């Protein structure tokens, strides 16, 4: 706020949710250290006091993949450990409360896509993240549910971690390992290339875990809500949304693609205070 000609005027400067970047960096480094240490430990080295868990053990999606086998037989599929089920439970709890915060704040693959996306923003400016025709985009958004059904089905019927061979997340943190399939590396490469044009392409179109967590957007406790009374309808919130959700046309965001990044809120891009809020209550 500044005082000009005796009046207090709020000068708007677009802000970002910087704490989210800190949390993203933290989890990226944590997972990278765990994965590197796992490789070192397998080769007789590593840091003894640091976790030497495999990447599968600290991935909550493993809990989803093994769920059928676990319920049917009490067993976990190969390479999955109890920790995956625990993490899946924790992430589900967070999602019921706040939506897919895991996607927007924790998942290192989403973070890396955002980093690459910064390059796309510099190159394409306002055209960035608007290359895919809206009709096609709307259809492609449901592709990830197809991926989810396929992963759950083949994992249940084979009892093995089939998705590992196609998982760009596994490839990202194990590209130096012989365990990674070329198909996974190819999918990671395509994802990173597409990230120059589209924000979070893997999350939008293919991520099976994003599909699971996205469902919680329909009933989560805290939601993005817009006050129609104070909204200036400048569309800033919609432009800022990495998932292209038209926030400025809705009162409550129940879109299955929201990742709870808060970039559309009055704390960040919205120039009007208390207009786009992340709240459990209602807004006027």
């Amino acid at each position: 706020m500044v005082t000009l000609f005796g009046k207090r005027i709020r000068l708007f400067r677009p802000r970002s949710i910087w704490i989210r970047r800190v949390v993203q960096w933290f989890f990226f480094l944590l997972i990278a250290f765990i994965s590197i240490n796992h490789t070192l430990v397998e080769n007789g080295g590593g840091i003894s006091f640091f976790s030497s868990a495999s990447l599968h053990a600290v991935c909550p999606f493993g809990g989803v993949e093994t769920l059928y086998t676990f319920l049917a037989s009490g067993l976990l599929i190969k390479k999955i450990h109890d920790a995956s089920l625990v993490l899946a439970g924790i992430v589900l709890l967070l999602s019921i409360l706040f939506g897919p915060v895991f996607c927007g704040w924790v998942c290192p693959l989403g973070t890396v896509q955002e980093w690459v996306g910064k390059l796309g923003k510099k190159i394409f400016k306002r055209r960035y993240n608007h290359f895919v025709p809206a009709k096609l985009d709307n259809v492609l958004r449901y592709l990830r549910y197809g991926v989810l059904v396929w992963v759950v089905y083949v994992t249940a019927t084979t009892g093995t971690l089939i998705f590992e061979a196609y998982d760009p997340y596994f490839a990202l943190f194990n590209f130096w390992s012989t365990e990674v399939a070329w198909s996974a590396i190819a999918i990671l490469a395509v994802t990173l290339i597409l990230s120059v044009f589209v924000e979070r392409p893997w999350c939008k179109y293919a991520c099976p875990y994003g599909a699971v967590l996205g469902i919680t957007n329909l009933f989560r406790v805290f939601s993005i809500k817009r006050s129609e009374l104070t909204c200036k309808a400048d569309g800033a919130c919609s432009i800022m949304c990495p998932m292209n959700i038209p926030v400025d046309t809705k009162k409550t965001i129940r879109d299955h693609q929201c990742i709870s990044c808060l970039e559309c809120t009055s704390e960040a891009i919205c120039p009007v205070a208390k207009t786009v809020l992340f709240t459990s209550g209602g807004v006027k």
Partner: protein
Amino acid sequence: MTMTSKPLAAIVLVVIFGGILFSSAMGWWATTSTKEPVTFTEGEFAGEANPADIRGSYTFGDISKSFDVTPEVLAQAFDITESDPAAFAVKELETIYADSGVEIGTTSVRLFVAYYIGLPFDTTGQEIYLPQSAADILLAKGNLTPEQVAYLEQYTATLGESAPVTEPQSAAEATPIPAETSSTTSEEYIIKGKTTFGELITWGVPQEVIEQIIGAPLPDPAMTVKDFASANGLDFETLKPALQAEADKVKP
């Protein structure tokens, strides 16, 4: 209640790491295998270790601690000739048999252990291959049900003339062929120095006939006829014609 970014960040971190700490305290947090398979919870085998929970990270030694099968038998079954079979990790099998055309790995070990001990194992809808050497041991043990024998016949892979596997790179040269596609030519029914008692059983030579010819109970199925003859002061060339005659009777 309205939430801003900083409390949300704190909650995310607290819930994740608090959840991990809580689950550790409750004994639920495990990022590595305990090397102790879960047990059957119901039925005739309740309380016994379940072979279906054997992991790739287990060594043959780990398996022998939970199941009544020695590392040496497992090594024979999967053609591993390392000096310390107890230290051999199950997940290495996938590398060793990588070029085999069929998958022989952790699931194969699970099946072998279950059949060897006589524990239930669900193979419904699964194509689990075993090497010929493993099938020989199981058939010679003689405790399989007709359905299990039929399953083995369908999903047994035979190694060629290659030497037993010791290193992954040398194993790649050994190409198992699915039993159903490999030809059961008359060549395979010729008794050679390398022919094992397990192979004779697999061909269909009755155990009692073999025992009658060799004058002793059936030895270890992985033992060659020639080695048996040497060990017992017998002449291989004397045993060979009699066994060959029986092999010729069952030759397709």
